[in-house]
């Protein structure tokens, strides 16, 4: 590697370097910050992410391969990094008050989030199964720790332990698949793999390798049959971390899935059938099990499983529109899901946990504005126009029908009708129940939470009404372009 190539590589990975270096500095500075100085940590973390975002924006102009084919800074990665920045910044904003209430506001919390962010960024840019693995593990290890951050709560510890064990197994499976690929093709680079295969794409060894890699990846997005960790981890983790996990690592998982799956080698192996089956099963399980949940966080966990299933339909469709539809879906999902989580997080105040759906009975009476926002997010999650959630689903369906998968599209919409039921059930509780006489709501409406609500609401309604710009952005960010 020449000096010039090294310089180019460093330049291409500058945002990642900023985030990692920033996290390390914050780790040291955090020890010097006195208790109760949480706002310093939040602003410093947000500043780091913004600098990284600026870097990504400056690099967006051209495709920059780096580190001898391990890494690439292209528009595709840039789009996903944008989603990660958005989710991370909103999580920081939500964490300020919540960490104080839960007494977990140490600097490690913010540092771990930044490390998770850098892991996801590497995943989005990775073009080699090994660099994918590095990013995946960096992200996963950070989220394991964050899940267990409520040290005094049994639920949180249990969730963390479950997550570590199952996550470890899935990583092992993924690595095994990688080793098989290496054995067959002699390379782990995504581009090199396809070129190396000369024989039958339906080689059983290759198929086995693909199945293992798929299994490792769908674990991260919480798809059936590797979804079992999701409800427990989502319920046990601090709610801010749940919000983060339901959006960002999931998007990172999809970034890798798209890169791996649309590789000609995998595309030739009929792996889409596997993904189609997984998508249908994931959506069905998420939608039907969510129907009977009483706990808000658990319900949102199953809802996120269902949404992962819907996004997987976009992967099945493939092609430029299929990829763009998944990307747009994830961006929109980030807005609406963080919005509804923001509402749940701010309910956590004093003794009020806000985790049970019935807790929200009659919210519309005392807090009409907040109730209206929740209605907006919930209808968007259900996919009712004119919200962004509708356009996200619509575009996935367009991609499906374009490729001739009309039956899959019909299944997808019927299952989303099932899913609509549990979202509007929450609307019903908020609007149509009488509030408990003594249980007055006291949401923690701090300025940073207000800002989060404003950003997410603007995204949810704005993309719904004016999707053209965002659609073009996603279509232009499909790799190759």
């Amino acid at each position, binding site marked *: 590697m020449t000096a010039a190539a090294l310089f180019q590589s460093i330049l291409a990975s500058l945002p990642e370097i900023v985030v990692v270096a920033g996290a390390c500095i914050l780790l040291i500075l955090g020890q010097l910050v006195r208790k109760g100085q949480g706002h310093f940590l939040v602003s410093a973390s947000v500043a780091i992410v913004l600098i990284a975002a600026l870097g990504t924006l400056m690099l967006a102009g051209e495709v920059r391969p780096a580190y001898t084919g391990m890494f690439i800074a292209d528009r595709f990665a840039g789009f996903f990094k944008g989603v990660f920045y958005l989710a991370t910044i909103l999580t920081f904003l939500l964490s300020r008050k919540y960490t104080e209430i839960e007494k977990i506001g140490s600097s490690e919390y913010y540092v771990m989030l930044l490390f998770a962010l850098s892991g996801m960024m590497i995943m989005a840019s990775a073009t080699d199964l090994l660099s994918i693995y590095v990013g995946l593990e960096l992200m996963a290890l950070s989220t394991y720790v964050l899940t267990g951050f409520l040290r005094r709560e049994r639920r949180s510890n249990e969730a963390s332990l479950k997550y570590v064990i199952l996550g470890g197994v899935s990583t092992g499976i993924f690595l095994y698949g990688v080793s098989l690929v290496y054995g067959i093709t002699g390379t782990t680079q995504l581009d090199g793999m396809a070129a190396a295969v000369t024989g039958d794409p339906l080689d059983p060894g290759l198929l086995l390798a693909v199945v293992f890699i798929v299994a490792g990846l769908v674990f991260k997005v919480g798809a059936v049959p590797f979804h079992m960790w999701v409800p427990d981890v989502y319920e046990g983790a601090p709610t801010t971390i749940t919000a983060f996990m339901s959006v960002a690592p999931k998007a990172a998982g999809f970034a890798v899935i798209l890169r791996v799956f649309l590789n000609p080698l995998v595309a030739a192996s009929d792996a889409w059938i596997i993904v189609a089956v997984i998508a249908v099963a994931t959506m069905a399980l998420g939608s039907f099990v969510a129907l009977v949940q009483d706990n808000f966080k658990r319900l949102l966990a199953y809802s996120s499983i269902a949404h992962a299933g819907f996004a997987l339909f976009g992967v099945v469709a493939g092609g430029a529109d299929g990829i763009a539809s998944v990307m747009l879906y994830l961006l929109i999902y980030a807005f609406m899901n963080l919005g509804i989580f923001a509402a749940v997080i701010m309910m956590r105040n004093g003794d009020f946990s806000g985790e049970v759906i019935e807790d929200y009975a009659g919210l519309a009476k005392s807090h009409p504005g907040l109730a209206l926002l929740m209605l907006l997010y919930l209808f968007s999650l259900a996919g*009712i126009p*004119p919200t962004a959630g509708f356009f996200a689903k*619509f575009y996935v369906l367009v991609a499906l*029908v374009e490729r001739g998968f009309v039956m899959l599209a019909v299944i997808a*919409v019927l299952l989303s009708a099932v899913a609509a039921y549990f979202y509007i059930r929450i609307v019903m509780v908020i609007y*149509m129940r009488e509030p408990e006489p003594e249980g007055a709501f006291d949401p923690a409406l701090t300025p940073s939470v207000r800002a989060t609500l404003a950003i997410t609401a603007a995204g949810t309604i704005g993309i719904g009404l004016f999707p053209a710009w965002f659609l073009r952005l996603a279509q232009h960010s499909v790799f190759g372009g």
Partner: protein
Amino acid sequence: MAFPLLSLIVFMPAAGAAVLMLLRNDDQVRWTALGVTVLDFALCIVMLAGFDTTTHEMQFTETRPWVPALGITYALGIDGISALFVFLTALLGWICVLASWVAIDRKVKEFMVSLLVMQTLMLGVFCALDLFLFYVFWEAMLIPMYVIIGVWGGDGRVYAAFKFFLYTLAGSLLFLIGVIVLYFHGGETFDILALTEQDLPFGVQSWLFFAFLIAFAVKVPMVPVHTWLPDAHVQAPTAGSIVLAAVLLKMGAYGFLRFSLSMLPEASMHYSTLMLALSALAIVYGGLLALAQDDLKKLVAYSSISHMGFVTLGIFTLNLRGLEGGILQMFNHGVTTGALFLFVGLIYERTHTRSIADYGGLMKAAPVYTAFLALFTLSSMALPGTNSFVGELLVLSGAFAANLAAGAAAVLGALLGAAYLLGMYRKVALGPASVGARFKIRDVNARELAAILPLAVFVLWVGLYPKPFLNIIGPSVRHLLTQVHSYGGGQ
């Protein structure tokens, strides 16, 4: 570009809703809502004054790119058929505000906001010339309607709201898939006019016809997917019932006209006998159910099913008289059934009972009320001189030309209509004044009269001189028929 009159008409209620959010006083809210809807109605009259009744072309068209990457445009425009329903919607807008003046006594602001948003979406459905835009309006309507039924409804409102929501959602999602399939078959455009020019293979048309049928049949509603309607109507507040009966149900029939007939002519011809049979079934079955009701609102709700059966019957006769009658009957049903729901609401405000058995001799306590009730009851059973007579006569003559059995069933339905409507009127208005002893009943006041009178005017106007209305829809209907028959292989 010309002045965007249609956009103004469509979005004015929504803008009004935004203003309402800032108000604090309930009376201010009511007057503002009334002002906005009346102004919207006035604009609508202006529009009709400039409407050219000699052409079937879309008028007042506006086109702006919306999502160019997918060929989605923001396109509005009206022809004779939609003009009639834009007018009906605008008319009922302020009548609904008047009907909820005192009936809605809590969360007045939220109610009026929902009502006005609803108004925008309904107008949008009738004006949209882009399928995607149409779908957005069509589906977004679920949100305010769900809230209107679920928050301000009767005791079983939550169940009714859910049922309404899920039925309609499930139906329209299949429609959405149909729309996307049509998009790819029709050359990647959502332009409604361009799509009507397509000549799709029969196999595709058949699939799409049934995908559309499910969505529209739920909305109309046709038997056997009608079961959400009685629940929704009975539980909804008066204004909600009026909107549901007068406008929402029309959307299903409008969908048949705008999409099934003109885009899928071959399939429409091929399955017209099936549609006639379903319509005849709805007419008779709805009538029989109405005959057995003791609840006033339920009776009117089931009569709606029967009357909407006449509409779909007329549409699928696929001849001029049937179609004209069906469309006129859509308008008439909006006026008459809207009025009947208003009357049920008015009397319910006074007595808080809807059971027919509780009433009797209302004539003495409220003579003006009963006189108008008589008018609308007679209109509903299509007495000559009232609006429905003209519509039903056209439908029947079309039906007999198309299919003898369907015509015979429709006549039977008309007889049933006379039976349950006259029975209802006899029990409520005539006889000994059992009700006066239990309730203090006052007659209609000026505000209520203001809501009733315009509807009464239209009952008689269409009944005695239907020509202006037939003139408006005439060219569009004839154009529609040529489309159906030229692509569908002649008559």
